[in-house]
C-alpha cells in the first residue's frame, strides 16, 4: 500500500510521457490529478495509521545494493516527520495539479507539462519516503531534474533556458556538498540508513569534528536546494517556469527539501552545535537580504520568489536555534500560503494575458474578487497576523530565536516587519485603486474558471486555519504538531525557558510591528497612490543596492563566470588553436613544404634523369665494393 504512494504518479508520468502526442487533454487531466489524489488518500491513511498506532511504517521493496561492506535497501520509512511531509506534498500537489488544468489549458505542451509534474511528485515522494541517505539523494536529484525541465518548460525562450541551466548548475554545487557529506557518513558509520547512522552517532561526543564536517557538508546541499545565501540567486530566476511550477516546486515542496533533510538528520545536527550556529546565521542573513530585495521588486512573481527565499531563511533560523518543530510548522503553513500566493498571482497573470509587472496592474479587486480574497488571506497569513496560520509558525520560530540569541531575534523581527510591508505593497499595487494597464487588457479581464478558483479557496481555508495544529501552550493550546513530531525530535526537548510574560511581549511586539507596517504600506500605496518609479530612475546608493539584488549576480559574474569564460577563451586560443590545431596543421604544412622543395628535382630533362640514374648506380656499386 505504502509503495503505491510514489508509484502511482510514476505510472501516470510513464503513461502520459510515452503517449504525449496521442493522448487527449481530458484524459491527461484525469490521469495526472487522479493518481496524485489517490496518493494523497493513501498518504492520509498512512498518516492516520502512524498517528493512531505511534509505530513507524518501514518497508523494504528490495535489496538495492548488496555487498559485504555496504548494503542499501530500496526502502521506505514513514514516521511522523515523513507522514507530515507526505500530506503536504501530495495534498498541495493535488490542488496545484487541478489548478494547472485551467492554467495550462491553452498551452500546446499540456501533456508534457503534466508528465513532468507527475515525475516531480514521484521524485519528491521518494525524497520524503526514503529510509536512507541514498534514497533521499535519488529523490533529491530527481526533483532537481524536474525543476530544470519545468523552469525551461517554454524552451523556445533563451532567457528561460538560461534560468533553467542556472538553477541546475547552482543545485549541482549544493548536491556536491550533499554527496560528500554522504560519503563521510558512510566512511564514519559504515551505513547510510537513517536509523543505524543516528544510533551510532549518539555515541560520539558533542561537537566532534567528523559530525561537524558531515553536518556542514549536508547543509551545503540544503543551501543549494533551499536557495540560501550564497546560492539563492537561482530561485528568483526560476520564476521563468509556468506559475503552477513556481507554486509547487519553488515555493511549497522542493525548496523545502533542505529543511526536511536537516530536520530528518536532527539526531546528528544536535550533536554539532557549530553547524547549528552556522545554519542560524545563514538563515537569518538570507531572510533579511531577501526581504530587502523584495521591497523593490516590481514583478509580481519576483516579489513572491524573494519572499520564499526569505521565509526559507526563517525555517533555517528555526532549525539553527533548535526549534525543529517550529521549522516544520513554518514549512507546513508556508506551503499553504505561499502556494496560494503563487496560484493567485498566476490567476492575475492569466487574467492579464501574461503581464507580470505590478506597475501595470491595480484595481483588480473589482474584476477578480475571489483571487483578491484569497490573496488577501495569504498576505495576512504571511505577515503574521493572528489567528492566521503564518502567525503561529513564525512566532514559534521567533520566540525560540529570542531564547537562544537576542540578535537573531532582532533581525528576524525586522525581517517580519519588512515581510508585512512588501506583501501589502504587492497587494495594494495589484488589487487596489485603478487599473493601469491597456484598455484592451481591461476589456479582457475575467475571473479564472472554477477549476482554478476552487484549489485557491481550499488553500485559503488551509492558510486561514492551518495554525490550529500548533497553538502554543500560553494560548491554551497543546501544540498538536509538537506532540505528533515528538517521537522524531524527542532528544531535543524544545522547551522554552522564557517566562510567559516575556513570550506575550514578544508576540505582541511582532503583531504590533506588522500592523504598523501594514498601515505604512496602506498610506504609501493606497492613500498616496504612489506607483514605483520606472527602472531607470536614479536612486540613492542603498536603494540601488536593494534593487540590484545586493549585486550578488554581478559578483558571481566577476568572480566565477568571467574567469571561467576567460579560462575557456584562453584554452581555446592557446591550447586548442595553437597547440593541438598547430600540431595537426603543422604535419600537413611539413608535407606540403617538403613536396615544394623536392619538386625541383623533377626537371623533366631526360638526360638529367639518366645521368642521375647512372651516377646513383655507380655510387651503389662503389659502396658495395668498399
Amino acid at each position, binding site marked *: 500500500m505504502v509503495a503505491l504512494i510514489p508509484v502511482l504518479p510514476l505510472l501516470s508520468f510513464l503513461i502520459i510521457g510515452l503517449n504525449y502526442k496521442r493522448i487527449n487533454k481530458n484524459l491527461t487531466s484525469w490521469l495526472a490529478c487522479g493518481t496524485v489524489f489517490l496518493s494523497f488518500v493513501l498518504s492520509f491513511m498512512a498518516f492516520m495509521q502512524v498517528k493512531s498506532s505511534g509505530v513507524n511504517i518501514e518497508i523494504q521493496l528490495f535489496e538495492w545494493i548488496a555487498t559485504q561492506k555496504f548494503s542499501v535497501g530500496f526502502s521506505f520509512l514513514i514516521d511522523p516527520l515523513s507522514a507530515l511531509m507526505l500530506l503536504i506534498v501530495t495534498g498541495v500537489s493535488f490542488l496545484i495539479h487541478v489548478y494547472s488544468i485551467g492554467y495550462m489549458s491553452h498551452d500546446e505542451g499540456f501533456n508534457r507539462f503534466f508528465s513532468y509534474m507527475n515525475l516531480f511528485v514521484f521524485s519528491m515522494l521518494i525524497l520524503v519516503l526514503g529510509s536512507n541517505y541514498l534514497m533521499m539523494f535519488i529523490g533529491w536529484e530527481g526533483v532537481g531534474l524536474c525543476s530544470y525541465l519545468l523552469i525551461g518548460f517554454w524552451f523556445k525562450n533563451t532567457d528561460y533556458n538560461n534560468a533553467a541551466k542556472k538553477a541546475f548548475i547552482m543545485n549541482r554545487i549544493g548536491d556536491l556538498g550533499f554527496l560528500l557529506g554522504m560519503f563521510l557518513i558512510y566512511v564514519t558509520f559504515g551505513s547510510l540508513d537513517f536509523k543505524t547512522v543516528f544510533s551510532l552517532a549518539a555515541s560520539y561526543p558533542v561537537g566532534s569534528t567528523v559530525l561537524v564536517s558531515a553536518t556542514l557538508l549536508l547543509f551545503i546541499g540544503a543551501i543549494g536546494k533551499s536557495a540560501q545565501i550564497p546560492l539563492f540567486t537561482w530561485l528568483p530566476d526560476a520564476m521563468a517556469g509556468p506559475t503552477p511550477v513556481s507554486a509547487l516546486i519553488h515555493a511549497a515542496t522542493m525548496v523545502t527539501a533542505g529543511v526536511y533533510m536537516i530536520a530528518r538528520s536532527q539526531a546528528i545536527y544536535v550533536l554539532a552545535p557549530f553547524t547549528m550556529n552556522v545554519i542560524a546565521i545563514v538563515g537569518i542573513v538570507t531572510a533579511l537580504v531577501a526581504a530587502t530585495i523584495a521591497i523593490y521588486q516590481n514583478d509580481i512573481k519576483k516579489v513572491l520568489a524573494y519572499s520564499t527565499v526569505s521565509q526559507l531563511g526563517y525555517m533555517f533560523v528555526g532549525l539553527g536555534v533548535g526549534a525543529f518543530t517550529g521549522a516544520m510548522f513554518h514549512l507546513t503553513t508556508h506551503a499553504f500560503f505561499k502556494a496560494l500566493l503563487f496560484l493567485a498571482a498566476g490567476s492575475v497573470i492569466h487574467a492579464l494575458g501574461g503581464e507580470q509587472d505590478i506597475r501595470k496592474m491595480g484595481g483588480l479587486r473589482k474584476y477578480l474578487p475571489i483571487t483578491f480574497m484569497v490573496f488577501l488571506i495569504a498576505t495576512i497569513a504571511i505577515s503574521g497576523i493572528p489567528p492566521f496560520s503564518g502567525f503561529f509558525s513564525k512566532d514559534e520560530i521567533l520566540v525560540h530565536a529570542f531564547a537562544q540569541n537576542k540578535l537573531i531575534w532582532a533581525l528576524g523581527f525586522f525581517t517580519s516587519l519588512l515581510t508585512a510591508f512588501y506583501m501589502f505593497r504587492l497587494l495594494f499595487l495589484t488589487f487596489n485603486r485603478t487599473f493601469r494597464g491597456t484598455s484592451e487588457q481591461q476589456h479582457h479581464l475575467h475571473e479564472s474558471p472554477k477549476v482554478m478558483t476552487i484549489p485557491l479557496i481550499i488553500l485559503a481555508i488551509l492558510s486561514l486555519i492551518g495554525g490550529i495544529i500548533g497553538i502554543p501552550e500560553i494560548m491554551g493550546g497543546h501544540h498538536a504538531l509538537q506532540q505528533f513530531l515528538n517521537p522524531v525530535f524527542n532528544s531535543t526537548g524544545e522547551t522554552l525557558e522564557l517566562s510567559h510574560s516575556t513570550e506575550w511581549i514578544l508576540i505582541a511586539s511582532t503583531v504590533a510591528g506588522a500592523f504598523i507596517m501594514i498601515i505604512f504600506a496602506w498610506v504609501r500605496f493606497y492613500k498616496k497612490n504612489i506607483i514605483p518609479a520606472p527602472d531607470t530612475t536614479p536612486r540613492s546608493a542603498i536603494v540601488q543596492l536593494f534593487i540590484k539584488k545586493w549585486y550578488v549576480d554581478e559578483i558571481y559574474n566577476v568572480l566565477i563566470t568571467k574567469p571561467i569564460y576567460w579560462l575557456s577563451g584562453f584554452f581555446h586560443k592557446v591550447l586548442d588553436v595553437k597547440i593541438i590545431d598547430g600540431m595537426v596543421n603543422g604535419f600537413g604544412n611539413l608535407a606540403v613544404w617538403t613536396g615544394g622543395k623536392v619538386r625541383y628535382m*623533377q*626537371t*623533366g*630533362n*631526360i*638526360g638529367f634523369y*639518366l*645521368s642521375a640514374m*647512372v651516377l646513383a648506380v655507380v655510387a651503389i656499386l662503389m659502396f658495395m665494393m668498399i
Partner: protein
Amino acid sequence: MPINNYIVLSSLLFVIGLVGVLVKRNALVVFMSIELMLNSVNLLFAAFSVYHNNASGQIMVIFIMVVAAAEVAAGLAILVLTYRTNHSIDINLLNTLKH
C-alpha cells in the same frame, strides 16, 4: 682465348652504350645505345657460359633478346607517335609532364 679479353670487350661496349645514352639527344640513337648495352651483357653471359661449361648463361641470353625485341617494338611505336606530334625525336622535348 682468356676470359679477360671477353670481359674487357663487353665492358668497352657497355660504356660506349652508356655514354651514347647520356650524351645523345636523338631518341633513335639512344635506343641503339641501349641495345648496345644489352648486347654487351649478352656477350658476357655467353662467354661465362662457355667458361663455366654451364648452359644457363646462354638461356639468359635468349631471354634478354626476347625482352629487347619487345622493348624495341614498344619503343619504336612511341617514337613514331612522338614524331607525329612533335615532328622531332629529340628526347629533351619530352618534358611536358613537368608543366
